[in-house]
């Protein structure tokens, strides 16, 4: 039936700079992504209508599909996407995600920053928002400073939490009074009241209504922390999504029209499909991969302005998302330099460069964010900056993805936490099975080997870890498509979206320079055997293609650990990919690069040659 109902699907992601459209078609008994188009996003001046960018990107789909099939394919008529399809005209569904205009921007409040405040932050992040600030009763700012802050933020909505059910209402009332005094206005337009979701102590609901009822659009939902032992993020997250559609999207230029266009068959009836915040859609896909394969997954989406990190760790598939709001490759590139320092960027660069020229290059990328590195040296520099942006984003994620302190917790959705003993991070690079990269610098790197080394150098995976990349950035599209057709989303994800790069093997620990760090015996699918005792501080690349598996016996050097314990041999299967199997004996915990350029640069060149990262002209 699927092919009768959905032969052709259009999906768009309206990003802050570019609107990306993909066409998915039912071909020879399976769903495939066939063509891709893009156009500048038009939510802002001069056009102020998001649908113009959507139509331009879909028009590119139309042109490319026509070229591909040698016959006229029509997707647009009278400035509107044609739904449903009729032969070579139109599509059967159109779905979209959006992060245009800065995405969903929220402020959250909680009584205690590390408890209800953090729970509120998790609910907002899980819903795909950027959390502009967390205001709590104990955050050390004076009340007048909090009021000034709230007034100046102009979020799309506020999520207020605080207090367990039946607990004290005084602190919650105080936070409400601060919000009331600030009288915050919504970011997009002043013609409507700012939506405020209250998801705190049920006993304080009347007080909230009394203090805030007249000033804001107050929505009351279940307490997201009803007891200290329980986190209940689902209802708050659902309200955020409802309000995103009802309030925020309706205020953004052209979205009213776009919301009428997003249609798909649900239970056989053509129904409106809600527009999802882009990060929420990516988060859904990452969680699906983890659950379907029963693995731990770390996903990263590095954009121009922000870097999102998604993770699913522990046996309970605990999901976390963080947004590093000022780490990105264009708008925020200068902030990466400010955050990490020039030395940390230059440590990944295998040649000398004038510092002043590099600083000006970074600033020029900031003010002209859509440019691309044409010169090889500039590509190397951008990828060095990307490694640092990714590394810093993981540091932030690691700090956020922690166990709640000393509580037992019941949970029904994956945002909730297994609470055992402490605030330790649950991010564990040794047990991690798969890293998935996404975003321009990773998805569009000229060589996938470059994607591999960016992920490895930034995240330093330990033991055995599989690496993948979103081929052309379509995880958001598939995340929202899964809402109406999980089969199409899964098939396209497996066949066209996820590109497996290969596997990385990296012993944990440090040993002497020439001592053996890893004895790897690999039976490759072509019958060849790779057998080498690799000294410490080396990298090897063993070709092993997509869908291929090598049987491996991996013996760590003395005192080193491959995840099974010190000096423990592991027998495993290593998955290949477009790059292959990477053996990395440069050490973990600690991973150390020589400080002196005279020592470091030759090593970088040696590793880059071993992995065929860049053309030889720059490594000689």
């Amino acid at each position: 039936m699927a092919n009768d109902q959905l032969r052709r699907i259009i999906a768009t992601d309206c990003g802050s700079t570019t609107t990306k459209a993909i066409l998915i078609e039912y071909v020879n008994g399976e769903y495939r992504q066939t063509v891709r188009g893009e156009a500048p996003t038009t939510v802002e001046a001069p056009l102020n209508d998001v649908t113009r960018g959507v139509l331009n990107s879909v028009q590119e789909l139309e042109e490319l599909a026509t070229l591909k099939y040698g016959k006229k394919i029509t997707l647009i008529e009278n400035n509107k996407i044609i739904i449903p399809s009729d032969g070579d005209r139109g599509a059967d569904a159109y779905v979209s995600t959006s992060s245009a205009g800065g995405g969903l921007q929220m402020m959250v409040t909680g009584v205690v920053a590390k408890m209800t405040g953090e729970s509120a932050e998790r609910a907002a992040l899980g819903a795909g928002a950027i959390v502009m600030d967390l205001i709590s009763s104990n955050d050390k700012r004076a009340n007048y400073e909090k009021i000034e802050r709230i007034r100046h933020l102009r979020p799309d909505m506020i999520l207020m939490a605080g207090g367990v059910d039946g607990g004290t209402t005084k602190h919650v009332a105080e936070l409400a009074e601060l919000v009331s005094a600030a009288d915050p206005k919504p970011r997009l337009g002043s013609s409507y009241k700012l939506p405020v979701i209250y998801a705190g102590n049920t006993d304080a609901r009347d007080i909230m209504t009394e203090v805030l009822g007249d000033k804001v659009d107050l929505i009351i939902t279940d307490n997201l922390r009803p007891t200290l032992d329980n986190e209940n993020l689902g209802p708050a997250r659902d309200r955020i999504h409802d309000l995103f559609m009802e309030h925020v999207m309706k205020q953004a230029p052209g979205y009213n029209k776009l919301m009428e266009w997003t249609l798909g068959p649900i239970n056989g009836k053509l129904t409106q499909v809600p527009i999802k915040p882009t990060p929420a859609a990516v988060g859904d896909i990452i969680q699906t991969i983890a659950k379907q394969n029963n693995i731990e997954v770390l996903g990263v989406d590095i954009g121009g302005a922000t870097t999102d990190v998604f993770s699913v760790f522990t046996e309970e598939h605990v999901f976390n998302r963080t947004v590093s709001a000022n780490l990105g490759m264009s708008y925020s590139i200068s902030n990466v330099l400010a955050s990490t320092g020039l030395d940390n960027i230059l440590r990944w660069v295998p040649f000398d460069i004038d510092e002043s020229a590099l600083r000006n290059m970074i600033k020029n990328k900031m003010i002209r964010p859509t440019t691309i590195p044409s010169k090889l040296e500039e590509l190397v520099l951008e990828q060095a900056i990307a490694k640092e942006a990714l590394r810093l984003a993981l540091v932030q994620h690691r700090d956020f993805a922690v166990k709640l302190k000393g509580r037992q917790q019941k949970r029904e959705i994956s945002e909730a936490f297994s609470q055992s003993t402490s605030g330790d991070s649950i991010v564990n690079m040794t047990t991690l099975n798969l890293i998935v990269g996404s975003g321009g610098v990773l998805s569009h790197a000229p060589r996938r080997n470059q994607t591999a080394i960016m992920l490895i150098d930034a995240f330093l995976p330990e033991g055995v870890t599989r690496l993948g990349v979103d081929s052309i950035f379509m995880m958001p599209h598939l995340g929202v498509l899964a809402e109406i057709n999980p089969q199409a989303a899964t098939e396209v994800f497996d066949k066209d979206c996820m590109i497996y790069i290969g596997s990385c093997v990296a012993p944990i620990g440090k040993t002497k320079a020439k001592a053996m760090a890893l004895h790897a015996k690999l039976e490759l699918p072509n019958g060849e055997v790779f057998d080498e005792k690799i000294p410490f501080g080396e990298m090897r690349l063993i070709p092993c293609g997509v869908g291929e598996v090598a049987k491996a016996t991996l013996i760590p050097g003395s005192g080193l650990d491959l995840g099974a314990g010190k000096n423990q041999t592991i027998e495993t299967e290593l998955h290949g990919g477009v790059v292959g199997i990477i053996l990395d004996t440069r050490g973990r915990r600690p991973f150390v690069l020589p400080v002196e350029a005279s020592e470091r640069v030759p090593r970088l060149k040696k590793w880059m040659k071993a992995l065929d990262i860049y053309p030889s002209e720059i490594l000689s």
Partner: protein
Amino acid sequence: MAQAYSAGLTVTDNIILRKERILPLKGTVKVKVGDKVKANDLVAETLLPGKVLPLNLANKLGVQASLINDYLKIKPGDFIKKGQLLAETKGFLGFFKSSVKSPFDGEVESVSVHTGQMLLREPRIPVQIKAFIDGLVVEVIPEEGVVIENKSAYIQGIFGLAGEVTGKLKMIAKDPNEVVSADQIDDSCKDRIIVAGSMIDLKAIEKAVKVGAKAILTGGIDDQDLKKLLGYDIGVAITGHEKIGITIVVTEGFGKIKMANKTFDLLKKFEGKEASVHGKTQIRAGVMRPEIIIPLPFDEKELIAKKPEMATLEIGTTIRVIRQPNFGKIGKVVGLPEKLYKVQSETLVRVLEAKLEDGQTLIIPRANVEVIEE
């Protein structure tokens, strides 16, 4: 495809300009449709709410929050004077009273029986919006602001600092390649908008501030000079509120980059004329670029603003190269090949062929040019 959308900046000696002048909050519009205004004329004003100061009245008086109303000497909405009694306990036999007085002139925002807090608000802050450009009021948005139109020579910069200023243009650089130094800046620059060439160094900027220049227009600026000038490194390009004593507009980018001939010649043509300039820049979410506006005489019939459109790349379009190699060079599009092209970095990209001002023809990624709109 024979055309493609692209980033663009406008440099023109003649444009019908339409500017919205809107208050941050609703207020009063001071002009009406048909009024001719000068750049420094007031067009709308409002009062922003003052800062809020929370006072924990219950704590200060040592009473329960729920009983706080019993001790109040004022009520929410009252205007108050500094030192005025806000609340007082009865004490014991008229002695040992606790009292709280107002720390400033303002008004009482609210009093809470849940927390015992009183919120006081400082006096409202007047905000005035000026016309910024000489022109004609063509629309009044009630309580919010106005739309002004005029005919202008107009240049969009790529990056700027600080807010709106007006002043007469003064050329300092003799040619668009010149780096302007401090010894070229003197008292004759006072109240002027001065024009540099490919760069102006920090000492020259500081000298310009000292002599009272209103603004600097330059091709390039050095990243480290900018950092020293501001006292911090800019992480994200959202500017316009800097308090540095001068407005700066960069037309090309960071580093030493020759100002585009067309921009330089245009500024030179209007030397001595009054201009309106601001450095407000926002690259993301509501793109805003700095502007240089030189009002021209106009007939009201001429005021038909062009419908906004996205810049397009077509054969003959004037472009500026905005990334190395050849950063800053100007040329005309002579070809828009459809096939993807592998550049030195091995990236496969869509390209264009451009004939530069120096005569050479180059293949350049489309992403690495910006349209100079006329």
